[in-house]
């Protein structure tokens, strides 16, 4: 047992706080430079002419060339507008699916009593660590035998799992959140005659908004950036999402494609940037609630 002695605050220790904090700041700024350099270089390169991309490796373009964006936008037969639309649609529907299905499952785990609850909860935690790559082959075979791969609406294999709460991370995040909602509120609602559905509707749902927002943002960003599943399930050009379309640039080995490729890469990261600027605090807090108390 450590007795808290009447030691004065740390600042009175004999040290050189002034120079220390200067050194710390310089080190941190150096790390910031390393972290931001690739991103700034990416944006700079996207405005360079083809000649400059080969010769000028500096951060900023000498001649400002916005033409890369118009070239890239119309580069493939379908046009990048279509790819962005596809990506946005898949991401937004995923947000809806995850929000609804994970919230229902989390409510059952956090608040309701039923047989085998502990076992199902353990199974859910088990699926947290299950790599998606392990299931991709049989899922592909199953969706294909149902005629859903490359069907009339090729996004079903990407969306169905999301509407069935298979993202255990979000279920877990919401369970953790709901446990912090005082149970007295449930009891009060029950005394007023609410059943499990009423409590969900009038108590848990309104109070779970922060967890829902965190889920929505992460869900959007992860789906927007996701490549593996979209690569496997999307086969025709007009159905492609942005990440799959970007790989078409890699196939064309010509130097002339580098500028447009960078331009479209910048555009594809824009939504993530916007989310980051708007919700930075929430994202950082959100990653913290993911299993660590406090």
């Amino acid at each position, binding site marked *: 047992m*450590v007795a808290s*002695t009447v*030691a004065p605050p*740390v600042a009175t220790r004999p040290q050189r706080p002034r120079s220390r904090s200067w050194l*710390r700041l310089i080190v*941190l700024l150096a*790390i*910031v430079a*390393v*972290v931001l*350099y*690739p*991103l700034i*270089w*990416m944006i700079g390169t996207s405005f360079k002419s083809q000649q400059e991309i080969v010769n000028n*490796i500096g951060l900023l373009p000498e001649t400002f060339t916005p033409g890369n964006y118009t070239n890239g936008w119309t580069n493939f037969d379908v046009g990048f507008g279509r790819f962005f639309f596809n990506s946005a649609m898949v991401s937004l529907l995923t947000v809806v699916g995850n929000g*609804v*299905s994970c919230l*229902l*499952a989390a*409510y*059952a*785990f956090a608040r*309701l*009593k*039923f047989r085998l*609850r502990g076992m199902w909860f353990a199974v*859910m*935690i088990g*699926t947290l*660590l299950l*790599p*998606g*790559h392990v*299931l*991709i*082959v*049989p*899922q*592909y*075979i199953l969706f*294909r035998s149902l005629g859903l791969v490359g069907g009339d609406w090729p996004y079903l294999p990407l969306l169905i*799992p999301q509407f*069935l709460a298979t993202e255990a991370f979000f279920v*877990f995040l919401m369970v953790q959140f709901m446990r912090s909602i005082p149970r007295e509120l449930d009891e009060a609602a029950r005394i007023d005659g609410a*059943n*499990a559905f009423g409590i969900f509707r009038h108590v848990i749902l309104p109070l779970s908004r922060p967890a829902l927002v965190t889920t929505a943002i992460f869900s959007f*960003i992860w789906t927007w*950036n996701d*490549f*593996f599943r979209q690569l496997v399930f999307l086969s025709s050009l007009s159905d492609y999402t942005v*990440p799959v379309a970007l*790989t078409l640039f890699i196939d064309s080995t010509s130097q002339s494609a580098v500028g447009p490729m960078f331009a*479209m890469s*910048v555009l*594809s990261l824009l939504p*993530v940037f916007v989310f980051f600027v708007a919700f930075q605090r929430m994202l*950082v807090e959100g990653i913290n609630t993911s299993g660590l*108390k*406090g």
Partner: protein
Amino acid sequence: MALTTAPDPTRRGTGSVRPDATRRGTGRIRHGEGLAGYVFLSPWLIGLMAITAMPMLLSLYLSFTNYDILTPWSEVEWVGLANYERMFTSDPSWWHSVRVTLSFALIAVPLKLAAALGVALLLNRAWRGVGLFRGLFYLPSLLGGSVALAIVWVNMFNREGAFNSFLALFGIEGKPWVNDPDWALETLMVLAIWQFGAPMVIFLAGLKQVPTELYEAASVDGAGAFRKFVNVTLPMLSPVIFFNLVLETINGFQGFTAAFVLSNGTGGPVDSTLMYTLNLYITGFTDLEMGYASAMAWVFLIAIALITVVFFSTGRFWVHYSDGEDR
């Protein structure tokens, strides 16, 4: 000297992931609530059965067959352990992808965690601007998994890339890193380390939990900064280190996108970036050997499970839970 810590009654145990009330059995189930529970759980249950459990069983069955997507089900041939035999005895590219994945994880994960912890320690003082730095460092973790960033990364380490021009400042002769079998995987490791933000944020939260009295007590005992780090910070942070280690290792094993982009889906140059998941993808969806790919997936699953078990069983010896809940 060993610093003992007082159990803190205000904090509940870290990592006790159990729904409340399972501690004392399920207790009395209120009339109608059992049904309601399953109603609310039904989407998740259907998902578990149809999207997770059934595919797992199907994949187990397929791993004993020579299934490729083109043969009709009636003609699928049971080949017993042939797929597994081939993997372990006559498939050098499988062994190679295991080696690539292991070396990636063994080098990139510790360095990433070290970077995350180091930066978290730098930021772990209440002063203006911490929030800004914390946010900036987290940004790469948000962008890192994307194709766009992988494209930028590959170009940065090209012959004409920014990295070589940086080296040129010091008069060092660069090389086309991404086309060099000895260096291609290393560029991907650097990309992974660059995304140290997510574990850093978790470390920061853990550092906030360390009671300041411990540091004060250590100061009274005459411990310097290094002794405090070794005797106070590290033991108090060990649950968080453990959490990050398990998470990042499992993530590291699953690296796919950057390797795919760097090698245009081949695992090149000379198979140097043939990560396990990339090899699985090529086997299943390029060569259409889905039976063999299923066997590869099961071996991968068992390997991840084993590694997790090893982590949890060895964790007992070095992870220190301050609330006496040593498991």
